[in-house]
């Protein structure tokens, strides 16, 4: 068993563990905005699995695309989380900026 194989297996196990942790978080957390945090966590699991494929296969057809998939998810994951949070806040309060000015005045 080569060092590359061991590294790929370790990365795969780490990626899968992170995703399982994200699913546990999704099931265990009760508040909607708390649950939003696990979306970002899950994307890093996908990135680690993509890196595992790239380590095992080097920069080949599958290695490049697996890496691209992981990077795509990690880069656009926060955008998705932000958009979801903004939409949920707008849904709750009518405007996502509601109460922000009031909090600012209280702080100053």
């Amino acid at each position, binding site marked *: 068993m080569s060092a590359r194989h061991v590294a790929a297996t370790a990365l*795969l196990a780490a990626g899968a563990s992170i995703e399982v942790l994200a699913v546990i978080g*999704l099931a265990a957390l009760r508040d909607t905005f708390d649950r939003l945090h696990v979306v970002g966590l899950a994307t890093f699991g*996908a990135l680690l699995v993509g890196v595992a494929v790239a380590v095992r296969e080097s920069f080949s057809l599958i290695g490049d695309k697996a890496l691209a998939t992981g990077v795509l998810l990690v880069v656009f994951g926060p955008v998705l989380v932000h958009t979801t949070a903004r939409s949920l806040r707008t*849904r709750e309060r009518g405007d996502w900026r509601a109460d922000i000015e009031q909090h600012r005045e209280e702080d100053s």
Partner: protein
Amino acid sequence: MNQWELVATVLGAGLIPCLLVCALASIADGLIALEVASTLLSTIMIALSEGLQRQPFIDLALTFALLSLLGALAFARLLERDL
């Protein structure tokens, strides 16, 4: 069964809680569960294409990741106005 197929199976089991949250929790929680499930599915496709040595199948994972992001963004925007 190699380690890639094992990981795909474990992550496939992880889709069940996502499905339950989608079905039983509020619509906002359902959207979050959908986002997590789409990430899980992309990872499953990566693991399966490597585990089964079907390298062209990796295109499915890449395409699915892109489309699921766009789909979730559309759902989030629609949810804002309660459509």
